[in-house]
């Protein structure tokens, strides 16, 4: 609902004082949403998938920027491999690689971002979220396990 995929039956969700229903694409440009599914195509290469997801956001980063995002996600060596040949964890990292591009969107909504990640990747993601928060960004994420981010100033809703 916060991402705008579903609409509230009552009330409104506001971004910087404005109802997100009226902001439409202007709100979408402020948002990075990583859902539960990887949002990558098995038949496209790692690099192609990243380029497509950025173009959907209306962004066209230069090749070095894409390479740098893939390096950060630990996928540079597999950049020309079809995404279908990646492990679950690598596909997750491919989705998360979008978060490393500059300029970052101020609002991150991440659905179970730590799923399928190994220890080094979890550490990388924790660092990414911490860095985002330090620069004044907002990160909203769900997790069913300890993330190592509990010490940060935040609001935790335990369900």
């Amino acid at each position, binding site marked *: 609902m916060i*991402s705008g*995929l579903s*609409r509230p039956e009552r009330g409104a969700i506001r971004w910087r004082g404005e109802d997100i229903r009226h902001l439409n694409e202007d709100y*979408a440009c402020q948002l990075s949403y990583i859902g539960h599914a990887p*949002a990558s195509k098995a038949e496209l290469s790692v690099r192609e998938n990243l380029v497509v997801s950025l*173009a959907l956001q209306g962004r066209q980063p230069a090749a070095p920027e894409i390479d740098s995002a893939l390096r950060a996600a630990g996928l540079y060596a597999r950049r020309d491999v079809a995404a279908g040949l990646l492990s679950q964890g690598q596909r997750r990292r491919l989705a998360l690689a979008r978060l490393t591009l500059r300029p970052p969107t101020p609002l991150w909504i991440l659905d179970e971002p730590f799923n399928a990640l190994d220890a080094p990747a979890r550490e990388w993601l924790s660092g990414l979220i911490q860095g985002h928060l330090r620069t004044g960004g907002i990160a909203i994420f769900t997790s069913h396990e300890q993330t190592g981010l509990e010490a940060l100033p935040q609001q935790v809703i335990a369900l």
Partner: protein
Amino acid sequence: MKQPELRAMACVLSRDLRLAWRRRTDTIGALVFFIIVTSLFPLGLDPDPATLREIAPGVIWVAALLATLLTLPKLFAEDHADGTLEQFLLAGTPLPLLLLSKTAAHWLGTAVPLVLTAPLMALQFGLPAAAIGTLVLVLLLGTPILSLLGAVGAALTVGVRGAATLLAILILPLYIPILIFGAAAVGDSLSGMPVDGYYAALGAMLVLAVFLAPWASAAALRIALD
């Protein structure tokens, strides 16, 4: 239209064409279906040339229509399953523009091969060159409407169990005017009558579909995924 929007549209178009090429079996499947269906009629009916010429426009149009319908359930289903559709809905580009690109890719990947094959199929029915020319032109005008209207149905039924059947029930009645105009144009061409009116009618339908169908598809997708 702004440059990032055009960039996103071009990216979706090239992505879907690349996917269609890498999953060639889907495209080839629709084409083989079209060839088989159109070839069955001359084999199963009276081989009288006059009869074959008379039924040719209807048979080729119905086969093209069903071949298009065959590919529609997959238009959004895979994007829905792998989460790409969520990214479309949250893209910084208006959803109707992205869906227009997606539908264009569907038409290029599915219907254009049918249109290119149609003259060969028409030869089986003994259609003269002038009627074949008309057939190709009305298919070029009519098949994009099939893709555009089909996208609305595919969007409404995304994620629904038994989507293919529901889609056929929803969309086939909407295809009737295109079938009537398309087949009648070829029939009139065979009789030596003018066909400009059919071109104008199909052209007008195409313009309306290009402007309205992507917005309807976007609304249908938002309803289906809410």
